């Protein structure tokens, strides 16, 4: 007999196969507990409460988690739990994956709209002359002498429908001045839309853009549905590595997330999908590959090469994205395996190539990418900062979503600020930086990262604390970024003080406290005004590439000439990294 699992708080019951792992059963039922570790029992995020049924003995790691999180004995990791009999489980709110807004910040410069997609209205069809009836295609050629010849037979088939429109007008959708994508009846010139999309490993952000004006009509955020195949890029690549058929599942997962988000935006503004003619996608190299279903095997094994860097605009129908099927999807050019299209787009967003002087561009994420511009030379690298700043591997860490402590101050005692002013559920990256810096000031943490108190734990709030291991995780993440900056500067014989500015991109946005980041050593010490936040520069860049053909050309050229260096193979890496683990301001 198949066991029944009752899932609370939904109250739903499901029949499952015997011996199936609980998290798999839950996922099949459409419930997605958070798992950052590819369901390996490593991240300790998918705890569920076993209300009825006999839980097996926890394994050693599980026991540690239980103790650390002070959970009652009937909590178990869903990914380690094999179902043997009937069961009632409760999924705690903190363990549920749900669509939530992510902090968003804009950095915009002004660009003259010059979209690839143009709408050309024309009054096409003269009444046929009986003496010499001109075919519809010949008439099109008369209007578009250069382009008309290339219009595909598929398009011409639809021409007949156009002449019935009472307005007597038709609209041609012209791409890049060289291709007719489609014809529409009547004057639809105002209906010209595009999508700018940032595919992050954790979150997707998209903007619906009026291509004629370059203005954003709507923005939306969603979790990347690939998360259930693993939290980080490598575990997703591994999924495909072990089973190449999964490539399609990963592609569909991100596509579905994107689709739902886009449909929501379109519905809200009563825009039909066929009026979306172009989408620009900016993601890291692996995300770009997975989105297109390209093989990712080589990305995670030395020498870590990619299948593609820059691609021409692709027919939308080939990508599966629901928009005008004759429209185009453009993927921002990848620089190298570990420095992708999101970074190329980010550089386009701030137009780094046109700025005079020496600059650093740092994208603070799980994979901390760093680009140094020295004069006209660009060098990029990536550092394995790990997901500590996204709240992972931290006892009470969480993403920057409502309830997260994002800011902390020392004002007659600890003052915590949470997103949405909710009761504190956990600590996100910026909150973590504030807290560690504050405890460093108080002497509760030494420069070496040792918690000085006997308890090896620092209370932050009710049921919130920092453990010694949490501080170590912050040290590792900080040291990775610091090492990247130091080695890149060293390679170019530059000192921090030589820099004209540092751009900081990433989900941190404006909440990153700069003095605190400098005090920890995450950012080098530099005049405050030289440090500029650019928020989600990947999205801003995707939009720039969407509304301006010129930006696209420049971005591709820049991506081509950026030199990539691998830090791990640098002889000085280990020494620099170990030295960088100590907290403290540096220049």
């Amino acid at each position: 007999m198949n066991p029944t699992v009752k899932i609370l708080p939904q109250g739903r019951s499901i029949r499952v196969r015997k011996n199936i792992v609980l998290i798999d059963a839950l996922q099949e039922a459409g419930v997605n507990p958070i798992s950052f570790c590819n369901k390996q029992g490593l991240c300790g995020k998918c705890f569920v409460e076993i209300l009825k049924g006999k839980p097996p003995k926890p394994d050693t790691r599980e026991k540690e988690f239980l103790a650390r999180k002070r959970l009652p004995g009937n909590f178990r990791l869903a990914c380690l739990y094999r179902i043997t009999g009937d069961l009632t489980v409760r999924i705690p709110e903190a363990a549920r994956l749900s669509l939530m807004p992510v902090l968003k910040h804009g950095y915009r410069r002004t660009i003259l709209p010059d979209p690839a997609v143009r709408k050309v209205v024309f009054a096409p069809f003269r009444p046929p002359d009986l003496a010499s009836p001109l075919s519809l295609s010949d008439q099109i050629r008369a209007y578009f002498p250069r382009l008309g010849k290339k219009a595909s037979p598929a398009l011409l088939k639809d021409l007949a429908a156009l002449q019935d429109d009472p307005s007597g007008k038709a609209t041609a959708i012209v791409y890049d001045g060289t291709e007719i994508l489609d014809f529409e009846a009547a004057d639809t010139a105002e209906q010209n839309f595009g999508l700018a999309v940032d595919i992050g490993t954790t979150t997707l952000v998209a903007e619906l853009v009026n291509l004629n004006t370059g203005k954003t009509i709507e923005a939306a955020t969603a979790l990347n549905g690939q998360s259930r195949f693993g939290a980080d890029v490598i575990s997703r690549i591994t999924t495909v590595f072990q089973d190449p058929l999964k490539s399609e599942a990963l592609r569909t997962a991100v596509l579905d997330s994107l689709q739902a988000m886009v449909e929501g935006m379109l519905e809200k503004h009563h825009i039909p999908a066929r009026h979306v003619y172009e989408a620009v996608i900016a993601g890291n190299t692996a995300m770009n590959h997975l989105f297109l279903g390209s093989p990712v095997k080589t990305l995670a094994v030395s020498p870590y090469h990619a299948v593609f860097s820059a691609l021409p605009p692709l027919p939308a129908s080939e990508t599966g994205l629901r928009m005008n099927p004759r429209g185009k999807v453009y993927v921002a050019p990848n620089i190298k395996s570990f420095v992708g299209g999101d970074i190329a787009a980010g550089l386009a967003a701030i137009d780094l190539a046109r700025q005079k002087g020496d600059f650093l561009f740092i994208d603070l994420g799980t994979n901390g990418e760093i680009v140094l511009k020295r004069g006209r030379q660009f060098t990029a690298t990536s550092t394995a900062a790990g997901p500590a700043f996204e709240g992972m591997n931290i006892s009470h860490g969480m993403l920057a979503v409502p309830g997260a402590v994002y800011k902390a101050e020392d004002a007659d005692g600890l003052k915590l600020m949470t997103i949405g002013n909710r009761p504190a559920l956990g600590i996100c990256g910026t909150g973590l930086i504030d807290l560690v810096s504050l405890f460093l000031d108080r002497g509760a943490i030494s420069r070496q990262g040792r918690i000085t108190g006997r308890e090896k734990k620092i209370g932050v709030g009710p049921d919130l604390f920092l453990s010694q291991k949490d501080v170590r995780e912050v040290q590792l993440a900080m040291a990775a970024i610091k090492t990247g900056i130091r080695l890149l500067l060293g390679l170019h014989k530059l000192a921090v003080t030589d820099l004209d500015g540092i751009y900081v991109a990433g989900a941190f946005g404006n909440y990153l406290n700069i003095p605190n980041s400098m005090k920890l050593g995450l950012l080098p010490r530099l005049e405050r005004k030289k440090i500029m936040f650019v928020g989600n520069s990947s999205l801003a860049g995707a939009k720039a590439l969407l509304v301006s053909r010129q930006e696209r050309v420049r971005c591709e050229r820049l991506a081509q000439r950026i030199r990539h260096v691998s830090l791990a193979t640098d002889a000085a890496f280990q020494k620099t990294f170990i030295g960088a683990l100590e907290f403290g301001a540096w220049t």
Partner: protein
Amino acid sequence: MNENDLFKEMTQAIVEGDRNAAAALARKAVDQNLDLHEVVEKGYIPGIQKVGDLWERGDYFLPELITSAESMKAAMAVLRPAMERAKIADLSRGRVVIGTIEGDIHDIGKNLVASMLAANGFEVKDLGADVKLERFLQSAQDVKADFICLSALLTTTMLGQRRFMELLKERGLRPQFKVLVGGAPVNQKWADSIGADGYAENALAAVKLAKSLGRKG
């Protein structure tokens, strides 16, 4: 200075990661014709053990671990030739071949394990990063290793650890070596599933594990 005070200073030099002091004290011991076996056992080993305790308590982190391991190395560099001259019995707790597996270029963690093993009296041959499976096998045979330590930092490259176990079996060499695996994505479950002899979460745990498994009989 009496011997016990000298031993205490040696222990202290290792705990504090004072390389110069560790080497200077070792020279003093050689000059004074002390029993070098005793010097190691009572002076230096307690130091590295204390470092292990401090690591486990969370007081020490990677930088402290490394400077202590380097101090140990500096002391042993002085003591070892003298011990050889005096034909004092081999201190070795076992021979280790270690490296990061093919396809993977990450090696800080592996380097730490290597230095802590060396600091604790193992003879370590470090093959570096991105090491072909065949090379592990060849080196292990060449040096007559007791242990083969395979590191992998990516879930993709960790599959190489399984291939290595298969290779060992194919060649009929499985009983000759004890295979230890480690790396960020690796855990005990994985080690068990590929039939490795052990898994260690960090450098100190690796030392404990290797000691508990002991050299082959």
